[in-house]
């Protein structure tokens, strides 16, 4: 669909990718300075997937991903401050410092969290889609996972039920070629990961995950179709992880040459040149944008450092909730049982 690109929208794609890149470079630096602990999994190289797909969604669509979650949260609009503060374990963090790098949650933006058990979040992603159908809403659930996650049971069970019940979910496999040190070719016997969808009779699509426009446009088409006719999609986004699996990873399982080769596909560098070629961006503007973003990233570290720790006195306040006395049940109407346009599918 050759429509003339909307300049602001295109620039936002670049901006969002760059913001993720610079934010994580800062986070990495802070980690190396031992200002933060735990695991830190960087998304650098994969920015086009989160940014492109989020650009294709509505704010009320759900998204959920694994522990490599900074990019998704920032793409969805989370501020760098609350993101950085979370890694610092501060009360001002997006999860009040209780979640850390692997658990970025942002309820207001329907960012349903980063999750640390491989595959464990995939049924949750199906659950959001289930809820949308249950309520007869045309919201879509975007569920991201890595190439290593498609071999675990929870993934299988979720995709099978999503297909059975025709849930409005997009299961996006971010195939960055590796699960820690295990190349995707060593974790399954598939020719291409997209083929896994055939085992569920689910519509399956491959997308170039290094091309942000491609990701946005293809996911937009899928979302549009799902809102018309709810059904799940299996999407393989081909991308690449430029950093180690986590900060402790020496990365000996791949050659420098392989890494360099993939860096030629850098989603940010490439897209910026495209925009410049198209006259939507000048080199100077790009530099200015980068400077702005770097300033925000630096600022986020100051914010995190100067933020208070979580309140020790509330240590036990996040285990159980007080049941909300003002909760209003929705009584079952006579038509209650027939009101869901999609109910048929639940017994399909």
């Amino acid at each position, binding site marked *: 669909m050759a429509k003339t690109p909307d300049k602001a929208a295109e620039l936002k794609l670049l901006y969002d990718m760059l913001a993720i890149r610079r934010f994580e470079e800062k986070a990495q630096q802070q980690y190396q300075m031992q200002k933060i602990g735990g695991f830190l999994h960087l998304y650098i190289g994969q920015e086009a997937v989160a940014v492109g797909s989020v650009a294709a969604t509505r704010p009320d669509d759900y998204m959920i991903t694994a522990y490599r979650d900074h990019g998704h949260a920032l793409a969805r609009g989370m501020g760098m401050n609350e993101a950085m503060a979370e890694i610092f374990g501060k009360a001002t963090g997006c*999860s009040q410092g209780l979640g850390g790098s692997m*658990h970025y949650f942002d309820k207001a933006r329907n960012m349903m969290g980063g999750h640390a058990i491989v595959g464990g979040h995939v049924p*949750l992603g*199906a659950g959001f889609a289930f*809820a949308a159908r*249950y309520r007869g809403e045309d919201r879509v659930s975007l569920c991201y996972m890595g190439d290593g996650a498609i071999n675990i049971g929870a993934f*299988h*069970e979720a995709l099978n*039920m999503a297909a059975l019940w025709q849930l409005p979910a997009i299961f996006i496999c971010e195939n960055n070629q590796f699960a820690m040190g295990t190349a995707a070719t060593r974790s399954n016997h598939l020719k291409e990961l997209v083929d896994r969808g055939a085992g569920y009779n689910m519509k399956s699509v491959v997308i170039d995950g290094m091309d942000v426009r491609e990701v946005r446009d293809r996911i937009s088409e899928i979302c549009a179709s799902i809102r018309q006719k709810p059904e799940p999609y299996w999407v393989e986004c081909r991308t690449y992880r430029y950093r180690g699996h986590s900060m402790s990873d020496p990365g000996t399982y791949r050659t420098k040459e392989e890494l360099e080769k993939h860096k030629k596909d850098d989603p940010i560098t490439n897209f910026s040149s495209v925009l410049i070629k198209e006259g939507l961006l000048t080199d100077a503007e790009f530099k200015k944008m980068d400077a702005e973003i770097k300033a925000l990233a630096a600022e986020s570290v100051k914010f995190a450092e100067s933020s208070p720790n979580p309140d020790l006195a509330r240590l036990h306040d996040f285990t159980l909730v007080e049941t909300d006395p003002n909760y209003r049940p929705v009584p079952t109407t006579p038509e209650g049982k027939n009101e869901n346009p999609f*109910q048929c599918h639940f017994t399909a």
Partner: protein
Amino acid sequence: MEMREITYRQALNEALAEELDRDQNVFLMGEEVAQYNGAYKISQHLLERFGPKRIIDAPIAEAGFAGIGIGAAMVGLRPIIEFMSFSFSLVAFDQVANNAPNMLTMSGGQFHCPIVFRGINGPAHQLGATHMHATESLYSNFAGLKIVIPATPRDAKGLLKSAVRDDNPVLVMEVELLYGAKGLVEPPMPEYDLLVPIGKAQVVRSGADLTILTYGRGLAMSLEAAELIATQHGIQVEVVDLRSIKPLDVETIFNSVAKTHRAVVVEQGRPFCGVASELCFQIQEHIFDELDAPLRRVSMEEIPVPYSEILEHATLPSMEKIVAAVQKVCGV
């Protein structure tokens, strides 16, 4: 208000029907819950009444539909997930123990999970080593879950209804061997809205000489044993039904044991790191000086449950074992 005598099974069925009727956000999902009316008929007639949107047959994929329930709960629905048996929840263990109860902490308080996991749990009849696990001790080691185990039809109904209205993940562990048991229960809604509070134990039989702390299947056996001991030895046994494993009603427990100075715990599962061991720790920690004798426990033998009926009987807690334990503690 007329009390009625209904079965534990009917009580659970009423609880489901009343909560489904009260709130469209409530739905029931599990294997065979809809068209089959439930493997144990707990969901009898619910499909007819509430339709396929609310009563949902799931494939055999416990981890998957437990997780779908957790996701649905995070966005405001109130799922009731049936495990045909909590022994089968072991394939969904990570979802139930490591996802649902952690969501509130991991999200810094943004997301909670108003979800109920329910199904049979613990000893049944000749189902073999894999099918009769008493999982309460496993799940109770995790923080962020509530666990109830009703021993009577009234508690079955009242605790399940309270569980559905609780904003936290609640495990309702039912006792298959009690499904046919009868008891008095208040009339159904709209006439009466029976809610039994989670976290409150009940003194079912009072006595001055020894306290039996029990729950679920153990209650009937303990009451039987208490009568026998009263007639045989004139020993008056107090029987406390815990009803909730978590939170635990320590006040009622401590009060009873502080009065009788002796206790036997009758649990459903194996002893090692079981419910009895936890009760023992808390009792001695708080009312050490009140204890005149060591606590004893009646548990499953520490072996995988064999199929043979006589071996199974020898493996599971029994009235005879309770009597023996009480005699031992009382030195008679």
